[in-house]
């Protein structure tokens, strides 16, 4: 294995969110309050009933574009409670529903998983990365998941190996692959750099 210089086709790219006019209802999950992304989305009005789940304060200035009487905003203190609320919201019918998620990559794929679990298709779910490119990483040796990894090399919190973070991405696991960087030459660890700010 080696660090690749070409684009790996399993690596997701994230276009910015756009209201899907074919949807009858819209559910927006804001994992990270990113003022610019929200402002861009709100340049056009949501074409139907909108409900928002947000991690953070409902009074945050980034949410001002949504301050309208007919928009429900539910606020959550943690990722875990937000995802549970999302799963509950999706438990009802998803006919005509469009799911949008905004924020860090780990959370995006948790939202995606929740949507897929209730049978939503790829084109009914939009994911947009915001606030950080910190990566979720799956250790291929011990199966441990880590989150918000900002460096090219990280120590696995499961097995303590030094892992190179690849671009190869699993949508099912919602993570990039990490594999031992010094397997062929034990102890030889390249410089650690912040590459996913």
């Amino acid at each position, binding site marked *: 294995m080696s660090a690749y210089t070409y684009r790996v*086709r399993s690596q997701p790219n994230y276009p910015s969110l756009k209201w899907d006019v074919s949807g009858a209802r819209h559910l927006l999950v804001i994992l990270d309050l990113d003022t610019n992304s929200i402002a861009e989305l709100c340049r056009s009005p949501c074409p139907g009933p909108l409900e928002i789940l947000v991690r953070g304060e409902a009074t945050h200035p980034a949410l001002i574009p949504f301050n309208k009487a007919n928009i429900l905003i539910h606020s959550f203190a943690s990722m875990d409670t937000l995802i549970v609320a999302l799963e509950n919201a999706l438990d009802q019918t998803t006919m005509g529903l469009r799911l949008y998620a905004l924020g860090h990559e780990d959370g995006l794929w948790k939202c995606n998983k929740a949507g897929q679990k209730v049978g939503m298709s790829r084109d009914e779910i939009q994911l947009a990365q915001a606030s950080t490119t910190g990566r979720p990483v799956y250790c*291929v040796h011990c199966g441990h998941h880590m989150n918000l990894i900002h460096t090219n090399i990280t120590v696995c919190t499961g097995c303590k190996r030094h892992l190179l973070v690849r671009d190869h991405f699993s949508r099912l696991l919602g993570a990039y692959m990490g594999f031992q960087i010094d397997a062929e030459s034990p102890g030889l660890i390249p410089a650690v750099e912040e590459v996913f700010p």
Partner: protein
Amino acid sequence: MSIPFRQETFRDDFTYRNSAEAVRRFPFPFPQDAYMYSVNIEPHVSVDPGSVYEHTFDIDEHYIAECEDRAITLGKTKNRFLALPHMMDAQWDTLELLMTSMARDYPDLFALSRDGAKWHWMNKPLNIDQHFVFGDTRTLPYAPLEYISRQGQGDFILLDQREGNLWVDAGVVTTQADWSLAFDVGMSFNEWHGPVPMAAEIGVFDRALKFLLMLQHGAPVRRLNWTMTINPRLDTSPEHYDQWGPDRASVTPENVGAKVHLRVEVQTLFRLPRSNGVLFGVRCYLASLNDLVTNPAWGQRLHRVLRDLPQPLAEYKGLVRYRQTAVDWLKQFDQSHS
């Protein structure tokens, strides 16, 4: 046609060896002196009696030892067999295809009798005598795909077809060239091949996918792929990279002929009748450089292919650390040095 099965290992003391006959029938993968990635798909039809292409699933002298090695891997590490829930029909399709093919092609080794859903399977080399009900998982000791894969050589991957794509939704993967089923399960065809350099740019996988979506039941296809492995190790999985990675640094001019193995995959693809899925068989053949140079034409050609292999492919295949040592050693078998 009785096959003299070898007692040998693919790990620890690595007692795996090829007989002269196994070398003679080795699927040497290079039709030219230079290698380029290509689709190179052809119908999987029986040709050349005695060759690895004679039977639907080739059984050779390594059969018992390979099944033993697979059992070790499946017992030691989890997620080497995986199947998403919607793949059950494809699992039974695969069991049927393997049993009927093996019993037809090797009647002195395997036997299948069927009375409706009541099946009786006999595998003489592995001493298995199994009565079961086709379609009833409770009548087998393992899930159908795992059950039959434990009695086959090579990996078996099941692809689901939907949304105009193929999805890696099940498999038994213990003889792989550095890819992880646990990580790749659920991927689309293109995501699965995401890390392959150059091939993507020249559209190889897009064309292959288009072709495979049209694959017809009863008209399987095959292609060859290759890489190199240090020591005759079947389980070169990313999971165990820490175990086999150091081997790459162990190649010297003295041991290169015995240690460096050409690893050839005969890949076969079958449309499955009930599930409309695709069975992707990846059968791995290993031959040391010492084995290969007993055929002068192979020694010469391998020297040229390895010497001229584009660097990105050498990196992708993990050959960088020992390629020069192998090329230097092979040069003595390439008299014209062209």
